[in-house]
């Protein structure tokens, strides 16, 4: 048994430690996910004006600040009792703002945080055993995805064209975010009852032109066919089967065109998404398309015990057909629906009462069983000697609590969202994997879902900007500040990386008595719970192989691409998984806590 530790898993936000035990065949047999930072964030709101959370919560994460301000403003709309009367123009403005940040996040994740792993030298070694085809695939991977300051065996590698190309896209998406949101990161315009700014006709033009540049990038870099054609045949397909058939047929055409010449270049029709779709999956690449090689990412993170995993989405993006929204049960009235799905794809309506947490394996004093967030107790270790994660058998090993939904650990993020909203391509791919004896829940489908969501949200944002945003509309309603006395509010939304909830309780001075945030990364990177059940990422690592392409060239413990791919496929964000603490124990249950 070999212990392989990745610490820190870089290219995520904040310090994440993934500790594994690996057998002599290179299979991961045990895994622990440790959040290595403690910031005590939510405590700063106590006794303060609840509105501070709109701006200060964004400082939890500079990659998805808008999601935090959306969750906060939803909680405040609820707190002040104005959620039902937010004008639809304000809802459109919020959707645009939030959507721009989601697009920007997904581009950042795919190209800057995750993509460089495709340029891992292990793939060069594997691909070089596959002759001209292998060489040309490796050339494409390096030429597109190599990061800056990159070297292999001492030789400097120029940064990849996609890596370099996405930075200006990130920049202009933030420019558009500033047009509608004041500045980025950490924008300023969310406010209970609406937004603070009035977009102008010129703002609409600026944002439209930026979105058309983004579409140009997607067309030139991400996909080999026009964006509209892709969206029209997948997201807008009449059935999941039609969407999956289109996907496979498109890859077939490309493969047939290219196999004789070994030309997988962009000019021959291979966008980044097609390249990864054909080469990333054993089922699609080798079994369906007949390629001699694949990265086998679909054999990673299959969740070997399907009774111990679920998929959760709070639902997101307001329906802009009418004013106001329902803050606590968004099931049918959002562009993306809320819900809980079992691993056998059984859909259940989301009920926030079913969310609980345990601290048995976290650096906090224990309590019995699991508790709903409102009843949570959090007593952190303040003795440095007790903060020890080196002993693999130690009970306590992380600052994250373990969130559960009816006792089930849940994966959250684009894959869960698209599954729950029954998006045709993802639903069709899940069916395809199941029909062929593969687990549909894997690192490959998770990444395809993120890219597919990038296209879908891009499509919607363009509509919100060009069709729905009315510069002559109403962008706010007045708020009665006294409504915040002895009140409470719940704000839920979907951050780019998954379900995000803010809960606020106020006292009779309309000041914050408790503020709670449960983040997506707390769900995905959860430790074991009171029953000893691992969180999604821990579960996903167990059974995965440690080295590239299913240990194709043998086991290399010192380059654990398996851990890197599985870990990064969740788009982890550690600084989001922050906790507040109750050092005094004087606060009543529910006054503390959190992730």
């Amino acid at each position, binding site marked *: 048994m070999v212990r392989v530790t990745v610490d820190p898993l870089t290219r995520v936000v*904040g310090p994440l430690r993934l500790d594994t035990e690996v057998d002599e065949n290179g299979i991961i047999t045990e895994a622990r996910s440790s959040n290595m930072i403690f910031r005590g964030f939510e405590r700063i709101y106590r006794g303060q004006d609840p509105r501070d959370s709109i701006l200060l919560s964004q400082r939890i994460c500079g990659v998805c600040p808008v999601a935090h301000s959306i969750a906060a403003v939803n909680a405040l709309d609820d707190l002040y009792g104005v959620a039902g009367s937010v004008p639809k123009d304000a809802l459109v403005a919020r959707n645009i703002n939030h959507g721009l940040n989601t697009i920007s996040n997904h581009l950042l994740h795919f190209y800057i945080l995750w993509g460089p792993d495709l340029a891992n030298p292990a793939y060069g070694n594997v691909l070089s055993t596959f002759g001209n085809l292998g060489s040309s695939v490796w050339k494409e991977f390096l030429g597109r995805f190599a990061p800056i300051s990159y070297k292999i065996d001492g030789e400097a590698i120029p940064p990849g064209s996609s890596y370099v190309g996405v930075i200006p896209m990130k920049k202009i998406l933030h420019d558009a975010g500033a047009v509608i949101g004041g500045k980025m990161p950490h924008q300023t315009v969310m406010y209970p009852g609406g937004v603070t700014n009035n977009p102008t006709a010129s703002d609409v033009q600026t944002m439209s032109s930026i979105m058309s540049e983004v579409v140009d990038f997607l067309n030139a870099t991400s996909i080999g066919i026009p964006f509209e054609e892709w969206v029209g045949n997948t997201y807008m397909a009449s059935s999941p089967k039609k969407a999956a058939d289109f996907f496979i047929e498109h890859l077939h055409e490309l493969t047939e065109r290219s196999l004789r010449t070994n030309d997988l270049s962009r000019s021959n029709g291979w966008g980044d998404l097609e390249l990864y779709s054909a080469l990333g999956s054993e089922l699609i690449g080798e079994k369906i398309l007949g390629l001699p090689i694949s990265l086998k990412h679909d054999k990673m993170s299959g969740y070997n015990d399907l009774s111990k995993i679920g998929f959760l989405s709070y639902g997101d993006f307001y329906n802009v057909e009418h004013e106001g929204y329902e803050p606590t049960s968004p099931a049918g009235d959002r562009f993306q629906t809320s819900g809980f799905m079992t691993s056998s794809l059984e859909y259940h309506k989301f009920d926030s009462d079913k969310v609980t947490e345990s601290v048995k394996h976290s650096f906090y004093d224990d309590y019995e069983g699991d508790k709903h967030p409102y009843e949570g107790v959090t007593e952190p270790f303040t003795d440095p000697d007790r903060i020890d994660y080196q002993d693999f058998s130690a009970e306590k090993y992380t600052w994250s609590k373990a969130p559960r939904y009816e006792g089930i650990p849940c994966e959250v993020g684009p894959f869960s969202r698209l599954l729950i909203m029954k998006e045709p391509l993802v639903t069709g791919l899940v069916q395809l994997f199941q029909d062929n004896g593969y687990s549909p829940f894997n690192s490959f489908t998770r990444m395809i879902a993120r890219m597919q969501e990038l296209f879908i949200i891009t499509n919607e944002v363009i509509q919100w900007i060009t069709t729905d945003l009315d510069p002559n509309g109403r962008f706010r309603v007045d708020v009665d500040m006294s409504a915040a006395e002895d009140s409470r509010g719940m704000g839920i939304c979907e951050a780019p990386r998954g379900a995000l909830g803010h809960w606020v309780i106020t006292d009779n001075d309309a000041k914050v008595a408790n503020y709670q945030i449960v983040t997506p990364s707390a769900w995905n990177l959860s430790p074991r719970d009171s029953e000893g059940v691992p969180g999604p990422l821990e579960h996903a690592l167990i059974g995965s192989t440690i080295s590239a392409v299913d240990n194709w060239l043998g086991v290399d413990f010192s380059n654990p691409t398996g851990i890197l791919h599985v870990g990064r496929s969740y788009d982890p964000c550690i600084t989001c998984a922050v906790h507040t603490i109750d050092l005094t124990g004087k606060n009543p249950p529910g006054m503390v806590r959190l992730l």
Partner: protein
Amino acid sequence: MSEENINSDNSGNDFDFLRMDWHKFLKARKAGGGFKLLESYLNDDPGDHDFPETRVLWIQGAQCTGCSESLLDASNPALLKAFEILNIDLKRHEAFLAHQGLFVDGEPANTSELNSEILLDEISEQGNYILMVEGAIANGPHGSGKYFMSGNRSSKEMFKKAARNADLIIAVGTCAAYGGINTAGSDIVDILDYRGVAFTKKDPSKGMLKLLGIDKPVINIPGCPPHPDWIIYTLSAIISGNVKIPDDLPEVLDEFGRPKVFFPPDHNVHKDCPRKKFFDNKEFDTCVGGEKCLLRMGCQAFLAHADCALRKWNDGHSYCVQAGSPCIACVEPDFPDNARPLYSSKKNRKRKEADQ
């Protein structure tokens, strides 16, 4: 580059901007419409831009990656262009590069090409680099630094390793400069005990360097997040040699270690505010969405020493007050406590009373 962009009061050398006083800076900006220092330098001296390589070591403590995100938004010039012009070799960065911490049976594994911890040790042994720090450094609990661990070491140990042989430390963002949001007032703030590089809030005796007994020149570029121009133009002034380290620092930095040209002691965001006439006429908004002065909505622009209202954000598209939101003075050492409650003018009154 247009002639107007050359600051006539500065012998045609507008590259020397860190030493400009605020009024000259404003004049240069206003005349040029943009502040293309790097390009203008290249145009003036086309043969003289072959700077020797500058190695940059970037480490992250308790932060949100907003500073790195902001740096990616650089417009004038774009980030990679600026790195190319300035010949910056970004050796290590937790968010962008290929490496990660790798251990097999507890021992560091692989090589520095893939292992960020071996790389950190190698670079810091070699010396001769600028250390850029993003995020606050944990000292808690009880001086252990264990509230932030990375690569089998506390952020305090990581910072010590990286700082010891640095030529210069640039604290990027309010967290690294002064502790930022990690030091926001609460009943647990003392136990958390997060520190800035050379200051914690306004107190230089509580900076992490002082605690570790390390003496290094430091430039603070605060902001939550900092404007990318502030970071890139500061690097360009140092790399060009126009600001000598450490000799020129007392002249170009203010009492909190900030470049005076971006964070002018005698100038604030309020003085450039497009809504200033409403303040002069005592016309105040008391709810959001109006066009008048936001003082009564808690605006802190008169306490914020920065050039946001002129420079604006994200390629000049907007800034907080323009979007109808009060300035929260995120460049100040006591952010966010200085501005709380964010949407209330009561704090202003209290502060005025306290000052008297």
